[in-house]
């Protein structure tokens, strides 16, 4: 089959790789119909996540049709249209039973490696390095999906791929970011980063009762997209002093909750950002903390810092004293996707949200290499790229036919 493979820093390619098949009794095989590129994929693209190997199949946001099920699969059936959570969960362990599915004990074959770094290891993830299991990802024609009765969510009839696809990651991720803020009616929530995750966090914060949401980014098209919701103000951090403006907009108190939807590849213009660039090069830190520092400083006393943005290693010059002195609380982590699926699916079904508003690029899977570049550089007002496989499967059958003809 055709798949998008990681070959090295800023080098992804369409390659022929072996088709997956059932390995464990609770597996199923999905024929992918739609898949997306995520901000998290950009960390891999930029070569910032260790333990990638050339040839690894990328992608963790995907959906499709079940084409095969293992012998112990009871509910998921061949022919089902399903969307797949990017975190792989067993459903039975201590963490799964507490709805902390991204912390599942039983799905990460690389757990021992990750434990060396983190003490304890999170769940396996699709297409996300050999620290998270080395599972082949969803930017491919077919994917082996473990625990077919736990993860895959059946897509209701009449719901399009584009409407359902973001349930795999970014919609639940944005929602959990807001949920983690314990929003009280009327609260002010500031959101750093108006990428897809930030956009869903903004929608969710409004939905959960925020009286004012302040969206921060530098790309006008992303700020514009954020401002389409009621109760949202936008800040371009290149034009204003973020701390002072937030202070002003909250009557001198600071936002009740601050969401870092940027993560470790924060862009910045201030001195601390240049410090990060140097420290990264010198291996003094692995992540860039510009946004997190600003978040900690800006948040009101006793407020909540919610971090959907990904951090992988070490961060230097984190103002822990400010966090302590202001009694902040921190919530973070990979999304417990499974927990939010029923609720968010019904929000889509009820027409409360049409997640397709984020899609700026509809392309073919084979265009992925070019689209990684476009999305990374935020060219062409790119917000979210969706890739479909229809024409690709046609092309690959053409290839097989040609091969057959040549052989004949």
């Amino acid at each position, binding site marked *: 089959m055709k798949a998008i493979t990681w070959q090295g820093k800023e080098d992804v390619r369409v390659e022929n790789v072996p088709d997956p098949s059932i390995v464990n009794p609770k597996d199923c095989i999905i024929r992918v119909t739609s898949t997306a590129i995520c901000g998290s994929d950009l960390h891999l693209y930029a070569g910032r996540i260790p333990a990638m190997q050339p040839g690894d199949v990328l992608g963790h946001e995907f959906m499709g049709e079940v084409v095969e099920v293992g012998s112990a699969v009871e509910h998921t059936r061949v022919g089902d249209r399903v969307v797949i959570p990017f975190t792989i969960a067993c459903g039975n*362990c201590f963490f799964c039973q507490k709805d902390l599915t991204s912390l599942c004990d*039983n799905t990460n074959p690389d757990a021992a490696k990750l434990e060396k770094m983190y003490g304890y290891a999170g769940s396996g993830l699709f297409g996300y390095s050999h620290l998270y299991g080395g599972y082949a990802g969803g930017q491919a024609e077919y994917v082996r999906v473990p625990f077919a009765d736990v993860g895959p969510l059946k897509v209701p009839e009449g719901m399009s791929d584009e409407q359902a696809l973001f349930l795999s990651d970014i919609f639940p991720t944005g929602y959990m970011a807001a949920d983690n803020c314990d929003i009280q009616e009327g609260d002010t929530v500031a959101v750093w980063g108006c990428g897809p995750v930030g956009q869903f966090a903004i929608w969710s914060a409004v939905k959960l009762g925020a009286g004012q949401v302040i969206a921060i980014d530098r790309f006008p098209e992303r700020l514009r997209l954020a401002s389409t919701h009621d109760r949202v103000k936008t800040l371009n951090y290149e034009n204003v002093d973020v701390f002072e403006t937030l202070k002003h907009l909250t009557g001198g108190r600071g936002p009740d909750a601050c969401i870092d939807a940027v993560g470790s590849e924060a862009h910045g213009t201030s001195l601390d950002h240049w410090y990060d660039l140097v420290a990264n090069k010198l291996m003094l830190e692995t992540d860039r903390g510009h946004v997190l520092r600003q978040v900690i400083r800006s948040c009101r006393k006793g407020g909540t810092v919610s971090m959907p943005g990904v951090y992988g290693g070490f961060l230097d010059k984190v103002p822990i004293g400010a966090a302590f002195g202001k009694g902040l609380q921190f919530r973070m982590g990979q999304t417990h996707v499974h927990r939010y699926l029923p609720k968010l699916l019904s929000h889509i079904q009820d027409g409360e949200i049409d997640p397709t508003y984020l899609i700026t690029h509809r392309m073919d899977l084979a265009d992925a290499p070019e689209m990684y570049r476009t999305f990374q550089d935020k060219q062409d007002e790119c917000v979210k790229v969706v890739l479909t496989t229809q024409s690709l499967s046609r092309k690959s059958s053409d290839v097989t036919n040609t091969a057959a003809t040549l052989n004949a």
Partner: protein
Amino acid sequence: METYSTSAPRYDELRDASSCNSSTGCRNVGHNEQLGSILAGGGLLAYGLMPNAKLRLVSLLAGASLIYRGVSGQCELYKRMGIDTTAEQTPGVDHGRGRKVVSAVHINRDPRDLYGLWRNLQNLPNVMSHLESVTPLDDQRSRWVAKGPLGQSLQWDAEIISDQPGQLLAWQSLPGADVDNAGSVRFEQPSSGEGTVLRVTIKYDPPGGWPVAKLANLLGQGLQQEVDEDLRRFKQLMETGETATAAINGAQR
């Protein structure tokens, strides 16, 4: 049993229990045999220390043991490892002898289910990756075969020395073992009341003295990792019915 190489003595010859004495020790290995032991032992150790060595534990154990025999000219008579079932924390092993590895894991299953699996000793090779087979000889005794590093097998007979259904199972090797060892597994109820904390203790008796103390440390790390990984897989199997793999097809697994 097969020999390691043409110059090396047969493993069972090296371990002739009748010719040495437990407390004093005695030169009971001839000079050629000594050299052979060192060479063979060194080979095994080198193999065992390779990053991808399969059966690291067994290679290191056997290697260290052979070198010791070679250097000291003694065959360490293994002492039976006493089992103290009254000690709360680490039952099944004697203090002050050998090396000990302890590993614990929480498993979301009833202690009785887990006990049942361990009590059927022939299941153990499915849990412990270095075991080839465990064959019950009678209700208490069983024959254990571990996969050796160079295709040979290491073998011992063991007896169950404590058996409290749903709570504790302990065993030890009998005289004549290729590697002296003892082990216990305790099935504890966690404070939350849910599931079982499985606590495994394995003790093995590497020969003492130089250069073995250092090696034994390495060896201990190898065994610790192996037991940790074995328990992780066991937990996966017990909680989900399968073990995690990113393989995309059966051949890759």
